[in-house]
């Protein structure tokens, strides 16, 4: 018998147009905590879904405990001993803890009556085994998120799991709850259960995991004991850049120290995602926000746009304190925000290109509630020409345009507002190379006109290429700012790692 619990060998999976997994090997040992790392689109979730029976593989083999398996659905995977605790818990809030644990498997006596006593005793014991003492008759909705996770876990373990898959279990937990979860994971390890632990937070990976497998673009990049890999190495493997191999393609340094400051944010805090961030941007400056997923980049942008309210901190625009309670407040102050979720938060799919472009600036072309269609078409045609938007006409519904052209329409919507400040969240995600370089140029020309820009991107090379200054975030804190000579992909990576180390030291104190 090998000491491997799970052996996935040569697994491939193709979706129309995308090779999601390409000949990936993935092994988990008995009784270890293993992590699967990779940026968005690396194939992490596809692999997990194959393992847990949600998808079926195109080729390759899966062996669990030396036995070949090929789960066709979640139940089959469960029966084989793989239990999954999904990001969104599939528990029922209005039932008690005990009822949730035994849902669908209630022990019954010979008259078909549910043996409640047995359920309560067994549930209490199972939770006690994980180090949790709680009244199991409490309703699920009345207990904390961490305990809810535990209930899901007990339910999973009760189905005799050898392997527990936890997909982002900590995303909704606070620091103390994470500690409880980690205690339970260690407990599982002692009992010989393997855990596949997924998290965006590097510090958690380094704290709890024994081993890590790294995927990128659907391919296996590496596998290592966690103690043999440094944070820098892990990050550069995830994003696929050796720091030495990056030929710097940098923006020419401009001195902004004489330019007026446009926006200052001080001590922005919000829940666990933002912890006292300071940021200032000068007129015409392009500032990048770097950081891994979950570092608080988008959350900061939303606060600056009034879409979320910060619990603490103040924002000044042109030296005056502003209160941004709604995107409309930000827009009045000259702030625009181009969301990374183009479909969900950008386009109005069934409306025309013209309506989409003037959506945020209707008030400029409106008198007594009536908008001028002539002016609307003038503006639309101007931007169609200026941004070379490929559309059969201004009245074409935007949903028929390609992703890159939709993105240009959304950019035009914000440009039509004549903003002083634009926040661009992943403006080039999911669009083709040609449109990408056009949007690149557009960003620079906006800055040349004196518009301040906050650019969020997970591609560090692009940040280095486009930005005058880059602020680096790590788990909700600003861990550094880089500009001029210091700015490079290498330096960004080092700053993230340093931020991580500092945090570890802080935690150990």
């Amino acid at each position, binding site marked *: 018998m090998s000491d491997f619990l799970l052996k996935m060998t040569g697994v491939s999976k193709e979706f129309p147009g995308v090779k999601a997994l390409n000949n990936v090997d993935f092994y988990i040992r008995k009784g270890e905590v293993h992590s699967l790392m990779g940026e968005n689109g690396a194939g992490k979730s596809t692999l997990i879904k194959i393992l847990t029976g949600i998808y079926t593989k195109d080729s390759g083999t899966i062996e669990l405990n030396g036995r070949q398996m090929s789960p066709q659905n979640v139940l089959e995977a469960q029966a084989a001993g793989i239990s999954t605790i999904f990001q969104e818990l599939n528990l029922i809030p209005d039932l008690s803890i005990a009822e949730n644990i035994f849902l669908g498997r209630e022990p019954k006596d010979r008259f078909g009556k549910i043996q409640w006593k047995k359920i309560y005793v067994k549930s209490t014991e199972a939770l006690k085994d994980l180090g949790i003492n709680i009244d199991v008759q409490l309703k699920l909705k009345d207990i904390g998120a961490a305990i809810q996770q535990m209930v899901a876990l007990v339910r999973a373990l009760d189905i005799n799991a050898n392997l527990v898959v936890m997909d982002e279990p900590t995303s909704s937990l606070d620091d103390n709850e994470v500690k409880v979860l980690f205690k339970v994971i260690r407990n599982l390890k002692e009992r010989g259960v393997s855990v596949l632990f997924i998290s965006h937070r590097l510090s958690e990976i380094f704290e709890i995991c024994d081993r890590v497998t790294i995927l990128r673009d659907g391919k296996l990049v590496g596998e290592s004991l966690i103690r043999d890999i440094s944070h820098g190495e892990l990050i550069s493997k995830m994003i696929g850049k050796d720091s030495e191999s990056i030929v710097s393609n940098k923006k020419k340094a401009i001195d902004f120290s004489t330019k007026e400051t446009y926006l200052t944010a001080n001590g922005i805090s919000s829940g666990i995602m933002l912890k006292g961030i300071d940021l200032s941007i000068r007129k015409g400056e392009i500032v990048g926000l770097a950081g891994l997923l979950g570092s608080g980049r988008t959350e900061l942008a939303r606060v600056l746009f009034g879409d979320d309210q910060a619990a603490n901190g103040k924002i000044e625009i042109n030296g005056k304190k502003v209160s941004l309670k709604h995107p409309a407040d930000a827009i009045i102050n000259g702030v625009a925000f181009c969301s990374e979720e183009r479909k969900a*938060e950008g386009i*109005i799919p069934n409306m025309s290109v013209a309506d989409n472009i003037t959506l945020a600036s209707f008030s400029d072309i409106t008198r007594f509630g009536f908008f001028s269609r002539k002016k609307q078409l003038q503006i639309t045609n101007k931007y169609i020409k200026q941004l070379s938007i490929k559309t059969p006409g201004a009245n074409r519904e935007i949903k028929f345009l390609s992703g890159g052209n939709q993105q240009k329409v959304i950019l035009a*919507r914000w440009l039509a507002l004549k903003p002083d400040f634009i926040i661009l969240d992943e403006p080039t995600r999911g669009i083709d190379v040609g449109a990408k370089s056009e949007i690149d140029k557009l960003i620079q020309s906006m800055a040349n006109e004196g518009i301040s820009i906050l650019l969020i991107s997970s591609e560090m090379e692009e940040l280095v290429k486009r930005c005058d200054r880059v602020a680096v975030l790590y788990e909700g804190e600003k861990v550094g700012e880089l500009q001029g000579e210091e700015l490079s992909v290498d330096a960004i990576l080092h700053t993230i790692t340093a931020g991580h180390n500092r945090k570890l030291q802080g935690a150990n104190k």
Partner: protein
Amino acid sequence: MNGKTLSLKPAVNGISFSKHGAAIIFILLMILNGIFTPNFASLGMLRNLLLQVFPIMIVSMGMTIVISSGGIDISVGSIMAVAAAALAKNLGIGIFPAIVIGLSIGVVFGAFNGFLIAKFKIQPMIVTLILMVGGRGIAQQLNNGYVISFYDHPFVELGLYSISGIPIQVFVMLLVIASVFILMYYMVLGKYIQAIGDNLRASELSGIKTFKITIIIYALSAFFASLAAIFETSRICSADPNTLGRFMELDAIAAVAVGGTSMTGGKANVIGTVFGALIIQLITISVNMNNINYYYSLILKAVIIIAAMYLQQFRTKGTK
């Protein structure tokens, strides 16, 4: 997109069936009635149709606004009853003040709907259910459940007034249809309403005050319901809080659905609703005039709604 979809779209001489389906069905129904229904092709008949379609028409104009914003309003029938009862109760202080009271109470009820929907993000169906049930109760409470009649009050002249033989209701209808048409296609508010119905988050992030607009949407719907109630009350010389506007919400929703407004919000088809309302009323009339049991008109309406939904489904699929 499959071949079936393609072949259905340009049905008659390149006219999109899904867009003009209601008009086509209406014309077909008129022709069929002209052939089979005795005494159908007459001016008196047309006058009747226009008078009887009046409440459905007015209420479905408001419903078009609500549905294109991604919502629904099932309280319109009860709001009609409340507005009518409030008006009838106050006729003593004068016709004009009574009308203002009736309309205002209706609008307040509608704004209440909108407020709950925007503030607590509860589904519109549930929120408007509150006033559908409660509103009917309030209307009855206003006169202890009795019908309020006023056969000799000068207010009855309003509903019977006509200009060169054309009932005033026809002019009110034209005015309301034109207003909603202009609102939805030429005014910013209409654009905002449809944008909210199509993508609420994107609208919010574009600086649209979705909270305020949601309140306006339901207030407008209630305003039109109350307006319909005032003319109906005057025409029948009484306000019956038990029956006035009963099932009106169903006819109005059916008219909007048949008219081709997307039930998931985003696109208002105002002219479609006009024909939708005419169809719903025409079915009732044809069944009556042919001495067919009333129940069959309900079944027929259901069939027409199914047909309309079926066509709509193709449209949404075809464009994705």
